[in-house]
């Protein structure tokens, strides 16, 4: 197994050279540091933010909002996707609607969220749900539509009553695609949460980003952007990515040997 290690090595090298180029450009003095901060400035700003106890509350509140909004979105997306996967009628009605809603950027949901929910966290939950529910629902629906019919036939000849088909057969058979949908939904929801916080909130990663711009503090802007990327990436890889991988391996969809 030489390949994965080589990939890691190459990736680390890639990021190190990226940092080196960034540092060189800043050190050359061609760009003003208040517009384009150096990696060192950014790193120092992250440490300052952490020291001033700004990071943890921001992370905490963004994650808290994500948990509520994403749970809501997951529930709605699973129900809608299940209905669409089972009933062609529901699919015909909802699919175009969800695809249409998905063309709206997350931030475009903010004005209506402000009108509907004022300055409460409800508006942020609303944006998270609207950003991610379509992706989850369509993945679930596609997953169900693509279940090999043989599983359904086998379940029926084994005497599975109609009421148990959803829970015992359709859901597990579609679980690999559902996991992909959940992963996608988390990413879309994360976009929504941070975008919403940019516009209205007094705490959170999006708010820190906004504050950086208000204070003309480019290093804070870049620092928070990098943190947002890292947190999103870590959750995607560690939580949702490994969940998806585990399911795919258990279902026999990837070669294990």
């Amino acid at each position, binding site marked *: 197994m030489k390949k994965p290690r080589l990939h890691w090595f190459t990736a680390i090298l890639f990021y190190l050279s990226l940092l080196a180029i960034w540092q060189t450009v800043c050190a050359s003095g061609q760009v003003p540091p208040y517009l384009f901060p150096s990696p060192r400035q950014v790193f120092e700003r992250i440490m300052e933010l952490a020291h001033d106890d700004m990071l943890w509350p921001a992370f905490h509140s963004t994650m808290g909002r994500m948990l509520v909004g994403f749970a809501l979105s997951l529930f709605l997306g699973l129900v809608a996707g299940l209905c669409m996967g089972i009933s062609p009628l529901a699919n015909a009605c909802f699919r175009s609607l969800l695809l249409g809603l998905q063309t709206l950027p997350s931030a475009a949901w903010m004005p209506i969220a402000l009108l509907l929910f004022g300055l409460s966290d409800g508006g942020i939950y609303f944006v998270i749900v609207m950003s991610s529910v379509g992706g989850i629902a369509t993945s679930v629906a596609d997953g169900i539509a693509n279940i090999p019919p*043989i*599983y359904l*036939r*086998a*379940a*029926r*000849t*084994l*005497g*599975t*009553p109609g009421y*148990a088909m959803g829970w*015992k*057969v359709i859901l*597990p*058979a579609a*679980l690999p695609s559902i996991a992909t949908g959940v992963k996608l939904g988390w990413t879309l929801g994360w976009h929504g949460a941070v975008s919403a916080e940019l516009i209205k909130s007094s705490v959170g990663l999006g708010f820190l980003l906004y504050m950086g711009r208000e204070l003309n503090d480019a290093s804070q802007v870049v620092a928070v952007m990098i943190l947002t990327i890292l947190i999103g990436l870590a959750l995607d890889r560690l939580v949702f990515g490994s969940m998806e991988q585990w399911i795919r391996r*258990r*279902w*026999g*969809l990837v070669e294990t040997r």
Partner: protein
Amino acid sequence: METEQAAQVREQQDRKPKLVIRQASKTFLSGKKEMHALLPVSLEIAEGEFWILTGPSGCGKSTLLNMVAGFIEPDGGEILLDGKRVSGPDSERMMMFQEHALFPWLTVLDNVLFGLEWKPSLSAKERVETARFYLDMTGMTRFENAMPHELSGGMKQRVALARALAPNPSVILMDEPFASLDALTRERLYEHTQAVVSKTKKTVIFVTHNVREAACLGDRVAVFTARPGKIKSEIAVPLPRPRSFYDPEVSRYAGKILDELKSELEKESV
């Protein structure tokens, strides 16, 4: 007097066939034309008999099997199991497919337990005991905690057989279950199938293209005509069991079945 009568009644019931297919037919629309998938077919299958359905491709033998399973509703005629008209799939009439159709998200044991879950009369302990009993019968006990994708093709079909047997169906319907396996595995599975069927005394309907397989496994063989299909002839194979795939008597019967089939295959190629 009364006991004699009762004995007579019982004898009549005994003689009553397990499964009756009466003038069952199926048509489908091809463009605007109505095509016959299956002309009216009648069969009487006694309890414990191993029936083979064979014939050219598209003769409707699989259609008939799917009608018995309840996946397809016949357009005409009826199918009776123990005198009751069948409708819809049920574990009384258990289908085994060409692909193993094991659920990839369940272990071998949980796959076999799946059909037992819908039997409310069994306790959890009895279910596991039943599942293990049939896994033992098909020689798969050692693999009860394996996932289906970890098994070879032949092992998967053995698990599928255990899963089909576990809910104690009246009739087992097999749709070319060994067709996608290699020859060696297939021959081992003929032994397994014969052993299991004679032990459980199940009624079986088995669809195949393979005349040797038909002669090796079947008590009776129904040969279908080319499309539109109907039953051309019924051949009894009164050989003792267990039969070897290479038994010369099996070959002789295979030849007989092939002769019946040949004229139909020629018709098909015209």
